[in-house]
């Protein structure tokens, strides 16, 4: 992948309004939950004994923000299919997989910057609200930096999941529904699966694994933070490879 493709993809990403709106939606979601949930807990009786921790409370927006950033990931490529401009793009860059890689790199950089900033903002806002409740914490406490940085990593990975789904499915609505299913619906449904087999599925299923990097305390039966992120990225890589193969083979 050449720097030419990267520059071109950066121009494409920054020159459509949906990029700005989905990024703002993601940041606002993080911040809103980061303030409102701590506020609710701070106003409850005896917050210190709620069994909650200040870090996770300030990052509760993750669940929803993962969907808005996934929408941006989807649109990054499905927008070109919707308008037909994908053909013009392929005329300029016949190496289609190269172009997909270029999109992924540019998206990753932009998303990491925005989501990490949003995660830190939410964290600090949340701690301000929690001040005096006994739940407030600092970046110096064990695991906190990993958790807050992890929130940016998890969100960006979710965006990449949207991007590879967009490349695979090529239709905005279909790809967004698939992203919601994979990030939100299926991981929750998997909790209902019975037995050892069900437990394994639940542990390894997409966001159940990926979200561990953005949680301060690993819940019983879940993967360790970095292992969880690794599994999430593996899901993305597998879908990405399928998408790349089809991208190469299919008529545009």
């Amino acid at each position, binding site marked *: 992948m050449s720097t030419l*493709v990267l520059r*071109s*993809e950066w121009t494409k990403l920054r020159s459509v309004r949906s990029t700005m709106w989905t990024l703002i939606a993601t940041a606002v979601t993080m911040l809103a939950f980061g303030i409102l949930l701590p506020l609710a807990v701070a106003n409850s009786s005896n917050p210190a004994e709620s069994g909650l921790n200040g870090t996770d409370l300030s990052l509760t927006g993750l669940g929803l923000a993962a969907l808005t950033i996934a929408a941006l990931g989807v649109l990054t490529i499905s927008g070109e299919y919707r308008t037909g*401009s994908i053909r013009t793009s392929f005329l*300029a860059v016949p190496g289609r997989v190269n172009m997909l890689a270029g999109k992924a790199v540019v998206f990753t950089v932009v998303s990491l910057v925005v989501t990490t900033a949003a995660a830190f903002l939410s964290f600090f806002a949340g701690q301000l609200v929690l001040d005096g409740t006994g739940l407030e914490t600092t970046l110096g406490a064990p695991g906190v930096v990993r958790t807050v940085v992890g929130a940016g990593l998890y969100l960006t990975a979710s965006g990449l999941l949207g991007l590879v789904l967009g490349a695979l499915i090529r239709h905005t609505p279909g790809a967004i529904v698939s992203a919601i299913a994979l990030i939100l619906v299926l991981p929750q449904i998997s909790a209902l699966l019975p037995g050892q087999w069900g437990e394994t599925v639940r542990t390894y299923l997409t966001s159940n694994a990926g979200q561990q990097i953005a949680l301060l305390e690993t819940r019983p039966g879940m993967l360790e933070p970095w292992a969880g992120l690794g599994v999430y990225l593996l899901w993305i890589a597998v879908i990405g490879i399928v998408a790349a193969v089809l991208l190469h083979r299919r*008529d*545009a």
Partner: protein
Amino acid sequence: MTAITATNLTKRYGATVAVQDLTFEVLPGRVTGFLGPNGAGKSTTMRMILGLDRPTSGSVKIDGRSYAELRRPLNKIGALLDAKAVHGGRTAHNHLLALAQSNGISAKRVTEVLDIVGLTEVAGRRIGGFSLGMGQRLGIAAAMLGDPEILIFDEPVNGLDPEGILWVRTFMRKLAAEGRTVFVSSHLMSEMAQTADHLIVIGKGQLIADAEVGEFIGLSSQGYVRVGSPQLSQLAPLLGGEAVLHGDHLRVTGVTAAEVGETAARAGLVLHELTFVQPTLEAAYMELTKGSVEYEAVAA
């Protein structure tokens, strides 16, 4: 030197054959018209040339290489396929800039091509608000970005107003005069008659004709002599060629107008009309593509 070479190019979608065993060459320095009724396979062929669709069999080369093998292809070949296939939210300038950057073309060239097609004033406006004519110009600007030797236009005048049509026509002639290869598709013979030097005609995905425009006329209808006379029934059997009654006159082929006149004079018959009717490209096209039109209107 050939710019584009198609060899036994075939494209099937399931049981449907879009393009069948198409072999042709497109040469530089002239406008080559790619003519055929709607659904004849013109766009499919163009997409295969440009590496967007994969041929079922056969191959197509650009200066001996496939499209995928071209490095920074916009510098070699420019194409306008569908002017509406752009992201409406982007400005004209950013649309062209993203394309230019991917091929190492300078931002200065973006300004230049906007100027060439007369869109400088709307460079900062979103493409979504462009008229059809403006969109077409933007598409041509995109094709011109890399100052390419080869240009491909798919139905470039579709939906344009007369002024726009004239502009596109003049522009294509100018490109060919500069020595470039211009390959342009149309389903309208009348359009090609005014633009093209050479014609490649296809119908139902198959090659029907590959000839100079002048030559093309001769391929089908040969013209006829129109004869009007109050004594047609006496005259008809005397004429050497084939005579067909059309209303109140005869259409005679195979003999010249002079021969008809001499025959009539010898027999002492009165002539009211004696005209040689030149065949038109339109007529030749209709003749050649007869039976290869996907849906034909039934005469009422």
